[in-house]
């Protein structure tokens, strides 16, 4: 049980490291969000799961599992908010991107600029 727990902790840290490497290497906000949400969420969930197994005490395990569940709910929601916020405030996609269907509907008018113009 303890060994399996340590295995999950190591695995989680490896995923976290890969997520951070992706965060540095990818070219624009949206690709970086991909790396940070996916790898870091799964890595942290593995880590919490490993902690729950190693501790083998009900109180700590329950807290770790609840944290994992909340992380699973909130992390993609936060990524969604950042991505939309970045797009609306005018951050461009990487120059080699192949398609941008969102430009048809996105409302990128900046309120602060129109206020100054009046």
């Amino acid at each position: 049980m303890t060994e399996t727990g340590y295995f999950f902790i190591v695995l989680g840290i490896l995923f976290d490291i890969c997520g951070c490497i992706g965060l540095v290497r990818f070219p624009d906000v949206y690709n970086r969000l991909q790396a940070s949400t996916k790898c870091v969420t799964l890595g942290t969930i593995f880590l919490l799961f490993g902690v729950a197994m190693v501790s083998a005490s009900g109180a700590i395990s329950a807290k770790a599992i609840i944290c994992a569940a909340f992380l699973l709910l909130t992390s993609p929601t936060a990524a969604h908010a950042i991505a939309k916020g970045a797009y609306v405030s005018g951050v461009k996609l990487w120059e080699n991107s192949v398609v941008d269907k969102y430009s048809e509907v996105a409302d990128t008018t900046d309120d602060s600029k129109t206020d100054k113009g009046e």
Partner: protein
Amino acid sequence: MRRVIYMVAAFVVWLLLTWSLDIQVVIAGVAASVVVALLFHEMLPKEHHVFISPVRIFWFLVYIPVFFYYMVKANLDVVYRALHPDMPIRPGIVKVKTNLKTESGITALANSITLTPGTLTVDLTEDGFLYVHWIYVKHEDVEQATQDIAAKFEWYIKRIFE
């Protein structure tokens, strides 16, 4: 009914977090969950019947391992792209159609898409289109992109939330 369900749910989370059946802790927990249920029941999801329907809970339990499989696959894919010297990415934002109607269902679908193979939900519109950032665009067409990205989750989420 709805307030009672949320009260019980809040109380269970409280018990798990404190992990104690001490009388003071339990009384404080009941008080806190009653306040939460009364004040915030309008902000909480409207699909509260999911919590008390055995069929929906069954599909939810089936969905967990399926989702986890896709999530691990997605992570290995992103790790591969992050570590590969040439960085084989071909990003873009595609449009995906969804037939889900309920708020919780669409939220679950958007979150599932964000956590799985190379895709990240950027926005959704009233008429049921999701705008998804895809790290390696295979199809620019709406129909095929829907097949590739959303179809596998929609089948389960429909059974859980709708």
